[in-house]
């Protein structure tokens, strides 16, 4: 019996707990959307989306552990990569002469 299936309280397993945590992370991510939409500057939006990306990575990892699907971590890895590239690319091209990096 793996840790995920261990009963925590009242019939709920550790896996359920992790799913709940993932749901809370989603809630926080939705709150973060406020900054991504309102701005006021482009950099604020990129920053918010960057944090959202990190949240997504964490959520993917949590779900991977909770549902017993370790390959979610591969997707999380790729997502983290793309998230980084997105931030760099947008930062570079929002500046007029492209002086960033």
């Amino acid at each position, binding site marked *: 019996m793996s840790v995920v299936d261990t009963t925590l309280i009242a019939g709920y397993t550790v896996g359920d707990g992790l799913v709940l945590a993932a749901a809370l992370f989603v809630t926080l991510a939705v709150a973060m959307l406020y900054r991504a939409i309102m701005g006021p*500057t482009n*950099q604020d939006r990129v*920053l918010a989306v960057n944090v959202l990306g990190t949240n997504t*990575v*964490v959520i993917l990892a949590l779900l991977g552990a909770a549902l017993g699907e370790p390959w979610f971590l*591969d997707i999380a890895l790729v997502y983290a990569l793309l998230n980084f590239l997105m931030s760099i690319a947008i*930062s570079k091209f929002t500046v007029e002469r492209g002086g960033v990096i």
Partner: protein
Amino acid sequence: MIATARIGLIAVFVTLGLFFTFVSTAGVIRLPDVFSRAHTASQADTLGAGFTLAAVALTLGWQSATVKTVLLLVFIFVTNPTAAHAIARAAYEEGIEPWTTGDDRR
């Protein structure tokens, strides 16, 4: 006994991860300018993600996927400050003045 300690540790780590991500979200929404927001965004990237991924690694136990969580964490720790730096620098070069105390826009 060990299993109980492990589950307790998982719960603590997930809670801490959630706490720091919450702080970071609150900060990004509350703070006045992009530079201050970048500080607190790095909280979610460091301890928020760090603690949660540690919990995930503990849950997965000793298997090859666990190495990936470590890899993921290292990756986040290397790339996120770089991204934050790029964003802050872009903001600076766009001519956004950092907010200081006494500034009335908020």
